[in-house]
C-alpha cells in the first residue's frame, strides 16, 4: 500500500515537472485528456461491467458544444466547458436510459447505434461545421482572470482537472454507491434479490462516466483549438476501449498507462511508419488479449499479490 502511495506521488511530481523536462506541453495535454477519457470509461466498464461501444459520442458532443459556445457565443472557457459537460451528461442520460435495459453485446450494440446517430448529427447539423468541424477555437482566459493562451497555463489547468477527476473516480468507487455498483457488477440477480433497483444504479454510473468523458472532450477542444468529426467517430470509441483494456480495466492506474501508451505510439510512430501505426496498435491489442488479459497494470497488481 505504501509503495502505491509513493508511486502516485512520483507520478504526480513527474506530471507537475513535465513541461520543465522538455516534454511538448500540447502532447502532454492531449495525453491527459485521453487518460481522463479512459478513466471515465473504466468507471463504466471496470466497475459497472458495462461495455459501451459509443463513448466517443460523449467525448465528441462535449467538444463540439464547448467549441460552439466559445466561437459562436463568445463564452469564456469555464462556462463553455461546463456547457459541454452538461451536454454530454444529458446525452449520457438519454443513451444510458435506453441501453441499460439490455445486457452484454446488446448493450454494446445499442450504445454503438445511438453514438452513430450522434455522429450524423455532428456531420449534418448547421452549427457543427460539417466535414471541417469547428476551427480556431480560442482558449480565452479562465474566469476572465487567467489567460490560457500560453501552453503552460493551459497545461496546469488540464492537469488540475485530470487530478480532480482521478480523485473523484476513486471516491465514487469507494463510496456507498460504489459498493452497490460493484455488487451489481459481480452478481446482478443477487443484487436484485437484496432489493436493489439495479437499473437506477447503472444509469447513475453511465451518466457519471458520460459526463467525465465529456469533460475530457471539452478540454481537448480547447487545448487544440478545434474539434473535428474524428472526436465523435466510432474509431475514437474503439480507441478508448483499447486504452482501458491495455492498461487494465477495474484498476485505477491502468487507463492512464493505456492512454499514455496509445497516444505516445500514435504520436511518435506515425512520424516513422505513417499509416502502419494502426496496424501496430492492433497487434499490441491482440497480444494484450492473448497473453495479458488483465492489462498491464492488472497483471502487475496480480503479480504483486502473489508475492
Amino acid at each position: 500500500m505504501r509503495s502505491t502511495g509513493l508511486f502516485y506521488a512520483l507520478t504526480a511530481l513527474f506530471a507537475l515537472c513535465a513541461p520543465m523536462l522538455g516534454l511538448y506541453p500540447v502532447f502532454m495535454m492531449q495525453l491527459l485528456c485521453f487518460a481522463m477519457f479512459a478513466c471515465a470509461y473504466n468507471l463504466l466498464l471496470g466497475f459497472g461491467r458495462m461495455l459501451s461501444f459509443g463513448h466517443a459520442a460523449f467525448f465528441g458532443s462535449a467538444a463540439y458544444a464547448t467549441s460552439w459556445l466559445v466561437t459562436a457565443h463568445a463564452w469564456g472557457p469555464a462556462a463553455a466547458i461546463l456547457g459541454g459537460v452538461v451536454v454530454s451528461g444529458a446525452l449520457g442520460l438519454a443513451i444510458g436510459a435506453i441501453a441499460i435495459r439490455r445486457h452484454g453485446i446488446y448493450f454494446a450494440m445499442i450504445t454503438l447505434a445511438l453514438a452513430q446517430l450522434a455522429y450524423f448529427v455532428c456531420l449534418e447539423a448547421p452549427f457543427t461545421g460539417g466535414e471541417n468541424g469547428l476551427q480556431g477555437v480560442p482558449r480565452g482566459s479562465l474566469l476572465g482572470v487567467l489567460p490560457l493562451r500560453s501552453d503552460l497555463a493551459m497545461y496546469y489547468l488540464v492537469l488540475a482537472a485530470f487530478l480532480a477527476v482521478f480523485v473523484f473516480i476513486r471516491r465514487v468507487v469507494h463510496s456507498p454507491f460504489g459498493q452497490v455498483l460493484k455488487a451489481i457488477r459481480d452478481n446482478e440477480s443477487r443484487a436484485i434479490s437484496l432489493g436493489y433497483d439495479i437499473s437506477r444504479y447503472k444509469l447513475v454510473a453511465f451518466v457519471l462516466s458520460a459526463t467525465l468523458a465529456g469533460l475530457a472532450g471539452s478540454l481537448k477542444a480547447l487545448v487544440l483549438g478545434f474539434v473535428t468529426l474524428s472526436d465523435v467517430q466510432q474509431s475514437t470509441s474503439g480507441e478508448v476501449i483499447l486504452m482501458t483494456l491495455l492498461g487494465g480495466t477495474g484498476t485505477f492506474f491502468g487507463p492512464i498507462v493505456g492512454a499514455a501508451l496509445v497516444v505516445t505510439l500514435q504520436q511518435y510512430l506515425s512520424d516513422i511508419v505513417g499509416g502502419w501505426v494502426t496496424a501496430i496498435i492492433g497487434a499490441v491489442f491482440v497480444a494484450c488479449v492473448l497473453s495479458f488479459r488483465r492489462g498491464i497494470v492488472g497483471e502487475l497488481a496480480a503479480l504483486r499479490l502473489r508475492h
Partner: protein
Amino acid sequence: MAAAPPSTADGFIIETRQLTKEFSGFVAVSNVDLRVRRGQIHALIGPNGAGKTTFFNLLTKFLIPTRGQIIYRGEDITFEKPAEVARRGIVRSFQLSAVFPHLTVLENVRIALQRSLATTFHFWKRESTLEVLNARAVELLQVVDLGAFASVVAVELPYGRKRALEIATTLAMDPELMLLDEPTQGMGHEDVDRVTTLIKQASANRTILMVEHNMEVVAMIADTITVLQRGQIIASGSYAEVARNPLVIEAYMGSTGAEPGMTR
C-alpha cells in the same frame, strides 16, 4: 413469534392461486395452489424438472406468471418487480451460490444492510460512512461461523462457506419469508449438517420455503412438505403423510432420479 402483522386471516404468509407458467407450449408450473403457513419450514420437493425452481422464480418475480395470482400477507403481488418483492421481505437464495465474488465477506453482508442507511446513491460519500454497519455484519457472520473470514475476498472461500455467506447475507435482510433453492446441494456431510442447523436457527422468527433434494434434511426440519410433479402438486402434508402417499411413491420410484429415503 413476532407480533403477527396483517395477513391472510388463517395464518398463511403466502398463497398462490392457480399459478401457471407456460414456456411456448410447455407448461412448467400448472395451476398450483400452494399455501405456506407463517412460521413454518415448508419444503418443496419433487423429481428433477418438476418445476420447483420455476415456481421459485415466479414467487420472486424473476419470471412473470402466465396465469394465476400470488398473495403475500393479503396483498396481490403478482405483478410487482423483483426488487420490490425483496423489499417487502421475500428474499431468496439461488441454486448456485450467490455471493459477490470480488467483495470481501464483510462487504457481502453489508450490501444487504446498506439500504437501511439510504445512502446507496451517494457516490460522493466516503466508504467509511458504512462502517457503522460493521458490528451488525460481523454479528451475522458469527451466526454462520464466518467471523474469522470477514476480510477474505468471497471468491476465495470454499463452496460450503460460500453458501453459509449467502445465508448470512439473506439473514441480513431480516426477511419475513426466506426462499432457499437447494441450500445443501453439492455439499459434503459436515457442511450439510451445519447448513441444516443454520436453517433451523434462522427459522426462529420467520417462514422458510425451501426446495431441497436431500430427504434427510427435509425429514429433519420441514414442518410441511409439498410434492411437485410435472408442474403440479401431487401431495402435501407432513413427512409421514407424504411418504405414504402412493402417488408420491410412484413419482419417485418411477423416475430415474429416485431419491433415497422417500419410501423408507
